[in-house]
């Protein structure tokens, strides 16, 4: 038996400007954050790499969590562990991120996986990307020619495809701090608690005034496309109405199934996934309501 070990070069940049320079000159570079996604793909032969651009040295500049001017900024090379140990996730408004931490893979993957890599992976089961969708997150891209910010709702193009140009790196994700009468929740459903991919993932944000839904944002691992997306129509339906069992039931039965297209694969059937999506969305909204009201 021949064991196939993919071979590739690694470019280790000195800093951000070195990385951007080399990216602008060479087309054969694939950026790597933690490598928890990329190295698996390379080794299994799904990605052919000539040279990997190791972004780890950029942690000097791009690993941080900052809260200023009512904006939360997370450097792309912040690890999932660092996010999970930060004070940010103790804020009840971002309880959904704390939910992610409980379910995100395993401690040793969290120690290498980065926030930027989670967005860059553009995978339906990217937990943090899903929460950024409901937090109206933005992705900051840097290139030698400057920077641009893209709404995360417009960042994914296909499975493992994003609007990032070849010469750009993801430098930061950010979102505006949400109002105090709001909170978030994230549910990943699988047979086991740790180390699970999830049959269905839901993330939600809701802002309540008394019992009135002032604002609501919902994202699933898939609405039909192979990347996480918002449930725009269900959101529209719920917005501005009184929170009640009846209302949620209507949204789940009459609105969500019309905009969601689930697939059948070896892990679960489309019917099961749709059913689960409804159940989990209801749970997530109830959880958020309880969180806003001071419970858990």
């Amino acid at each position: 038996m021949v064991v196939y070990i993919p071979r590739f070069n690694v470019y280790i940049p000195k800093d951000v400007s070195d990385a951007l320079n080399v990216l602008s000159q060479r087309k054969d570079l694939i950026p790597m954050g933690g490598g928890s996604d990329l190295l698996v793909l390379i080794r299994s032969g799904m990605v052919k790499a000539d040279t990997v651009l190791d972004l780890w040295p950029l942690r000097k500049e791009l690993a941080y969590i900052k809260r200023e001017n009512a904006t939360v900024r997370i450097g792309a090379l912040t690890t999932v562990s660092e996010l999970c140990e930060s004070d940010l996730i103790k804020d009840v408004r971002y309880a959904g991120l704390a939910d992610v931490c409980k379910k995100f893979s395993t401690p040793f993957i969290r120690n290498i996986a980065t926030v930027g890599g989670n967005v860059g992976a553009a995978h339906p089961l990217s937990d943090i990307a899903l929460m950024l969708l409901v937090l109206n997150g933005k992705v900051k891209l840097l290139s030698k020619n400057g920077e641009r910010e893209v709404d995360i709702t417009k960042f994914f193009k296909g499975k493992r495809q994003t609007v990032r140009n070849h010469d750009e790196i993801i430098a930061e994700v950010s979102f505006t701090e949400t109002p105090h009468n709001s909170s978030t929740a994230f549910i990943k459903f699988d047979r086991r608690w740790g180390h699970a991919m999830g049959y269905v993932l839901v993330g939600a944000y809701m802002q309540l005034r008394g019992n009135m839904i002032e604002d609501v944002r919902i994202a699933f691992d898939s609405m039909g496309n192979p990347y996480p997306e918002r449930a725009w129509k269900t959101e529209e339906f719920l917005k501005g109405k009184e929170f009640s069992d009846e209302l949620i039931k209507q949204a789940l039965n009459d609105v969500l199934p019309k905009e969601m297209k689930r697939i059948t694969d070896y892990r679960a059937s489309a019917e099961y996934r749709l059913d689960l999506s409804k159940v989990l969305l209801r749970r997530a909204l109830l959880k958020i309501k309880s969180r806003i009201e001071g419970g858990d």
Partner: protein
Amino acid sequence: MSVIPREEWDKYPDIEISLNVNGKDYKVKVKPYERLLDVLRYKLGFTGVKEGCGRGECGACVVLMDGKLVPSCLVLAVRANGSKILTVEGLAPEGKLHAIQKALLDTYAVQCGFCFPGVILAIKALLDRNPNPTDEEIKDALSGQLCRCGSYLRFIKAVKLAAQYIREGKEYFDESEVRG
């Protein structure tokens, strides 16, 4: 799948990295595509570092890199340059067993033992920052350590016992004391 011709291999440079493994300094030549796992296990002979899945899913290959638990199958060797590594071999001085090892023996958790180097280091990473973990914290800390023999419930007992030993100041045991 293809066989890579010899001349192709040589287009990849040797890169010299320095590592401190279990307190000793090493200089090793590595290829850019080699993993920390390849270097520790095959070049330096730390066979406590096991290759289970090679893709971050089983926890058999974990080591402590600058105090953090990482899967050595998903860390490129060049990235580990300059770091301090702890493998299971470096856990206790020669002739001694660490409290974690003693506790795993005391609770009869060891079956085939393949998962143990990883399990032991995952427990060490947990106890280093949390000397008195709850059941939930233990389950989370060990959630990536797959044990085909299914010693999971005993791991929980063992972690508590190890924590107790360490709190009592009994970090190391003589091998004779354990096997006795």
